[in-house]
């Protein structure tokens, strides 16, 4: 069995298409991460401003100054330190960006003109204790990963789609007449598919984390996402969780997505007689849920967000209200992945074993 898994992995991984597509995703990851890093801007409100590495250093030094639990005093201090000193020409000060800390404070506590809007920390965040710090690095990494994961999901479909359908081109004759062709071979294919999907996903994750470490270091993992600058949609997740928690969920969801997607693709790979059709149908099935006009208030939305595409677009699934136990609803992605891969394994194995040569 070990030998068969090794060969099935080899069949998946040594294809030129697989290598090219994985390299492309790595390249895309680097370009996105590097461009984000280079385009970062920060102004300390006095004289120091810059982009790239300078911006990161300015943001970090400002974050260090205010680090800790957000209080009304700190909020007023930030508002005062970064109060606009020039005419905004009608621009809403809530959208003003000087640096990460200023943007986070003004987005929530400023009126149009840059004056305090009268809300206290408890008015905005309730009784929650909001730990503030340097969140830009991790949230940028998280956003870039969410973008890249869409491309990654298509790569996973691309490499898994031929697992069964690719054999229908003629090798099926040989496989299905061999001793283990209808039994262990199909199992080895399924195991190799799951391993490939996980390996590719882990490779991309590690690459992103390595880049994040190089560009931003590890600061801010324990800071709340709720006090994020205006541009971060992570701020829409309505729970007081840290960057570290978001990242942990995002990585778990990426892996659960890879497993779920493998399950779906394996079924279609066993059904479709051509690898191209298997790829096209799997991609369509994968991408369709996001096009469905289902409002977030609909009970159906809770089901839809359990589909693998939403695991990757983790903001949606992580925004569903918490369960009674206090756990995030997103945790349901794990049993969903187990269900999908189990179905995928059982059905694809059965279809392949019953396949009739034509």
């Amino acid at each position, binding site marked *: 069995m070990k*030998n*068969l898994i090794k*060969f099935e992995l*080899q*069949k998946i991984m*040594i*294809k*030129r298409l697989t290598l090219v597509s994985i390299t492309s995703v790595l390249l895309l990851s680097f370009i996105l991460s590097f461009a984000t890093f280079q385009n970062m801007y920060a102004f300390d409100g006095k004289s120091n401003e810059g982009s790239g590495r300078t911006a990161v250093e300015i943001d970090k030094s400002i974050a260090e100054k205010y680090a800790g639990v957000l209080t009304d005093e700190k909020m007023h201090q930030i508002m005062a330190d970064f109060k606009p000193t020039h005419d905004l020409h009608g621009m809403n000060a809530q959208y003003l960006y000087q640096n990460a800390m200023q943007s986070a404070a003004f987005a929530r506590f400023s009126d149009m003109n840059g004056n305090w809007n009268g809300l206290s920390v408890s008015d905005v965040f309730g009784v929650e204790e909001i730990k503030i710090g340097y969140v830009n690095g991790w949230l940028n990494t998280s956003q870039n990963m969410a973008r890249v994961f869409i491309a990654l999901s298509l790569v996973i479909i691309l490499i898994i789609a031929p697992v069964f359908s690719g*054999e229908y*081109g*003629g*090798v*099926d*004759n*040989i*496989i*299905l*007449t*061999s*001793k*283990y*062709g*209808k*039994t262990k*071979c199909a199992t080895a294919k399924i195991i190799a598919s799951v391993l490939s999907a996980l390996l590719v996903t882990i490779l991309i994750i590690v690459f992103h984390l390595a880049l994040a470490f190089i560009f931003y270091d590890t600061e801010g993992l324990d800071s709340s996402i709720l006090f994020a600058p205006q541009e971060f949609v992570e701020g829409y997740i309505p729970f007081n969780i840290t960057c570290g928690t978001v990242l942990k969920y995002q990585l778990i969801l990426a892996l659960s997505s890879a497993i779920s997607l493998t399950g779906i693709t394996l079924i279609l790979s066993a059904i479709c007689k051509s690898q191209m059709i298997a790829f096209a149908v799997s991609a369509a099935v994968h991408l369709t849920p996001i096009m469905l006009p289902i409002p977030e208030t609909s009970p159906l939305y809770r089901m839809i967000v359990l589909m693998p595409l939403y695991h990757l677009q983790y903001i949606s699934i992580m925004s569903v209200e918490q369960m009674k136990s206090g756990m995030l609803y997103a945790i349901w992605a794990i049993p969903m992945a187990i269900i999908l891969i189990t179905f995928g394994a059982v059905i694809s194995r059965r279809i392949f074993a019953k396949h*009739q*040569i034509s």
Partner: protein
Amino acid sequence: MELRTNELIKRYGSKTAIDHLNITLSNGVYGLLGANGAGKTTLMRLLCDIQMPTSGKVTLDGKNILELGEKYRALLGYLPQNFGYYPDFTAMDFLMYVAALKGLGERQAKKKVAELLEAVDLEKESRHKIKTFSGGMKQRLGIAQAMLNNPHILILDEPTAGLDPKERVRFRNLISAFSKDRIVILSTHIVSDVEFIAEEIIMMKSGQVLQFGKPQKITAEIDGYVWECTVPSNRAERYTETLNISNLRNLENNNTVLRVIADRQPMENAMQVRPTLEDLYLFYFKGVSKE
């Protein structure tokens, strides 16, 4: 060991590919002859359990092969007519993979693969990717994979297609040496290949068996139907239009020797000759000249 088909029927929609077929095969080499569409490949697929019969069954020593499953496939070696391969695999990788599918242990597989690569003359190319192989080399690789598990039932669909004469001789010798105490079934359009190797011939037409027996016995069926006559070369072409000619040989004196299949003497100087398997094939698949 006895492989038997019982009232085997295979239909594709309204077309019947195998029609109430009953044959019993015991150890020996069987040559499957028939025109395109006669049902040879379908029969082989049914024997290999990669197509389900519409009705009827295939049994091995009285047991249905569908129920035997892995036990049956462990005894089986199959070379399909058209088989796919993994272009990025080397010949060695491919054979090691098939060996794993056939349940061979790694050490045993390595030994067997080396042995077969030598037997099919692919030793030097064992580390080359299959995508660089010629048609004949791929065919030889196919033959090697079919024999990896020392199958007791070896089914070869057009095994000599794409092989040059030297390779065909090598293949015939390989099969002859291998076939002891085994069932070997091979189909081919090259009648001479079957003539050399097969102990028994199964001649098929429209999914049914027309003839089944030893070559001498079944060719005896058309004793008196095969003639040879010498005609002027400039008239030979005219005869090919009206007679069922199985062979045509030009002589140096502007004459041509025609080998004719006919139920009566086709011309005055025609003499009866001993029929061959090729004559028998043409007798059934081209029809008898009634001139």
